[in-house]
């Protein structure tokens, strides 16, 4: 059909036979994209008398807005807190590789580091749009160094600083320039944090509370001065107590200024937080949930030892510890795994799970007018997925061919119930493993065969983390809307 587009001659792509996440629900609509922006097809039809140049059949896939990861420390061997000569190519590599996880925008995160590292690395991070070449960079997330020593987690103690002396000037001196900074995580109990938070908020930088021993009133005060985010809820903060909920109490606090919402990041890989805790947080404040990966350099790599800033960490499956200890330090879960686990653990709808990874981070950063949704005129970074299963190839070739931004594709056929043969196999395997355990018990007597691993943190409280069973994670797929 001859197109007569008065606004632009760029090719228009029409994605048909798909379900769009729009208006908080999945709708059977077509997605129209031109030059990386989502078009209003009615306007195109009546005003421009234009039509599609390319039609792509999505075969019933779900098209969701691209995921936004606001806490990612690196991946694929690249560590954002390590100043190397080829830092830029490292960040490009990560940007390109995380497309296949569905992430189309991210905030490279730097852990607590000496000022020299910030001065070297920050100028090399530039805010840029995503495309077929890789995910977009929204700005850096600086997790530290103004955090609490008691809750440093995997951060090096010798680099932790305060701004008690000169307030905001100390912060400026540490970071060097504030140009490409998007989020700063700090502990609000540090003196003069209020004025620092106000200064940062004035400059449009999102302030997050984390790695802190603040109580609820200190946290509320920080929120009143402008803080809007909580870095990995439950981790590296005082545990919830019924007489002093601590930072966790912000989820249901009544002292939040009107019109403002507190968001909280959660690493839903099944290790950093027990699924029950994930459910409690989600039910208490569903609109504030932001899924993050907190991925480290080892994400996407084989198990073994890798660097994280000034530390060495060890990867074992989905668990990442500081080498030689049992302190969790970041994760190697990918964003799509986090979304899937969140969906299964909370039993929420597909729309809610997708929004937690796309719309809510966009709302946190104040960019929901152009990212995080599939509304008309927003950026066309989209994730395409079938119900369930893994992410496979990246549609970068298609993306470049039609110049339509980042499009990622999940594989998989449509959701089918397990066939009788599958069920038989599962049953047989369960019986077999049970037999093995019984045999082992008989052979080796009362030897402990505990599957639990203990995490010991400095303040003496112990957390138990169970590896999530493989069968449980993979067997249930996303529910059909």
């Amino acid at each position: 059909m001859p197109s007569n587009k008065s606004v632009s001659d760029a090719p228009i792509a029409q994605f048909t036979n798909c379900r769009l996440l729009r208006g908080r629900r999945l709708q059977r609509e077509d997605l129209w994209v031109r030059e990386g922006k989502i078009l209003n097809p009615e306007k195109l039809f009546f005003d421009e008398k234009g039509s599609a140049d390319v039609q792509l059949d999505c075969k019933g896939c779900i098209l969701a807005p691209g995921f936004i990861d606001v806490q990612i420390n690196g991946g694929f061997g690249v560590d954002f807190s390590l100043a190397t000569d080829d830092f830029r190519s490292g960040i490009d590599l990560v940007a390109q590789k995380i497309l296949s996880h569905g992430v189309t925008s991210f905030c490279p995160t730097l852990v607590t580091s000496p000022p020299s590292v910030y001065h070297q690395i920050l100028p090399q991070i530039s805010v840029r749009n995503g495309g077929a070449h890789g995910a977009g960079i929204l700005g850096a997330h600086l997790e530290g160094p103004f955090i609490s020593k008691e809750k440093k987690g995997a951060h090096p103690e010798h680099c932790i600083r305060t701004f008690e002396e000169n307030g905001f000037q100390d912060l400026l001196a540490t970071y060097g320039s504030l140009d490409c900074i998007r989020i700063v995580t700090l502990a609000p109990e540090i003196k003069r944090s209020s004025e620092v938070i106000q200064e940062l908020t004035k400059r449009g930088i999102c302030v997050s509370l984390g790695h802190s021993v603040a109580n609820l009133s200190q946290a509320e005060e920080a929120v009143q001065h402008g803080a809007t985010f909580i870095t990995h809820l439950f981790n590296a903060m005082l545990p919830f107590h019924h007489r002093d909920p601590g930072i966790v109490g912000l989820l249901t606090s009544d002292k939040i200024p009107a019109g403002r919402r507190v968001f909280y990041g959660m690493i839903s890989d099944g290790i950093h937080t027990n699924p029950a805790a994930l459910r409690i947080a989600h039910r208490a404040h569903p609109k504030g949930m932001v899924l993050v990966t907190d991925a480290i350099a080892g994400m996407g790599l084989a198990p073994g030892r890798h660097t994280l800033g000034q530390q060495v960490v060890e990867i074992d499956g989905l668990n990442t510890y500081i080498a030689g200890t049992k302190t969790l330090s970041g994760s190697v879960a990918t964003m799509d795994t986090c979304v899937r686990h969140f969906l299964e653990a909370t039993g929420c709808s597909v729309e809610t799970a997708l929004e937690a990874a796309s719309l809510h981070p966009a709302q946190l950063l104040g960019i929901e007018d152009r990212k995080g949704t599939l509304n008309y005129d927003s950026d066309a970074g989209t994730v395409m997925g079938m119900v369930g299963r893994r992410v496979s190839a990246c549609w970068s070739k298609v993306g470049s061919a039609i110049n339509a931004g980042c499009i990622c594709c999940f594989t998989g056929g449509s959701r089918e119930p397990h066939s009788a043969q599958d069920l038989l196999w599962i049953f047989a395997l369960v019986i077999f493993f049970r037999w093995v355990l019984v045999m082992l018990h008989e052979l080796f007597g009362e030897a402990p065969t505990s599957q639990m691993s203990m995490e010991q943190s400095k303040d003496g409280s112990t957390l138990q983390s169970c590896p999530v069973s493989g069968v449980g994670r993979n067997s249930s797929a996303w529910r059909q809307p």
Partner: protein
Amino acid sequence: MLTLPQESVCSPSAAQPLDVPMLRPPEAASPRACAEPPAARRRPLLARCFRIASARRGGGSAAAFRSAVLGVCRGFILLYKLFAAIMRLVILEDYDQASEWAAKYICNRIIQFKPTQGRYFTLGLPTGSTPLGCYKKLIEYHKNGDLSFKYVKTFNMDEYVGLPRNHPESYHSYMWNNFFKHIDIDPNNAHILDGNAPDLQVECDAFEKKIEEAGGIDLFVGGIGPDGHIAFNEPGSSLSSRTRLKTLAMDTILANAKYFDGDLSKVPTMALTVGVGTVMDAREVMILITGAHKAFALYKAIEEGVNHMWTVSAFQQHPRTIFVCDEDATLELRVKTVKYFKGLMHVHNKLVDPLYSMKEN
């Protein structure tokens, strides 16, 4: 086969010489062959017809005569079908069947027209709740690959004045969401009146011009209001009116209020509409009428006289009209009328059965 002119065989005293080779020896010219009607000698055209007829039948004058007469009769029937006026009242059981019949008819008409580049099929389209089922069926035929709207031009009947084009209740939105979005029509061929034009009368005149330039409308599909109006030609509209601005009657505003959250103040009070005369200019008109609330209007349109208070009655004077309705819409008609037209359903169904498909081309 006889190839000689009849005159030379049957009248040896014919003046013209036998310059045509004789394919049959003279002795085969039986007396029977000379028993042609004398008219054949004096009327060459008629003779030629007999010749063709007898050639088809393999000879024999009586058979030739019979087949010639039959051929002539068929010709007349064809001419009658083409040029005679027909009013059909097609009565289906329920809304779904009525929508399906109408969609099949439109589908067949488009396909039989064989539209191509430069020769478009022009269709007039309605809005409202009645044609929704018909649109859904047409979309289904398109999705199955049986029907393409690539060479179809559409002209909508009406549009509200003052409503933004992207308002969910504007007729632009209605046509986009319920029809254009799902088919392959060229945006340049979809014409809808613009209710926000700076000069509304100029807009109406331009619309009339566009219809004229498209060669007139082949099939105008319309609905009917409870007060018997076609498009927004409210009771009292001239039956020879053209496209113009019209103030809506209270009845229409009340009927439309359900689309505006029941708030009467939000309903537009003026609209641009094609005139009754404009629709009468179409080569064929199909009116969809479903539901008991339209029954009285149908009665007035068909069984009473032509009356400008019930503007649909004007189509009693249109040469080709089809009223497609369901049982509920016939509740106010005479039993005699309903029985008569139901008895013709086997004829009406020939129009939609077989259902043609563009896949065969």
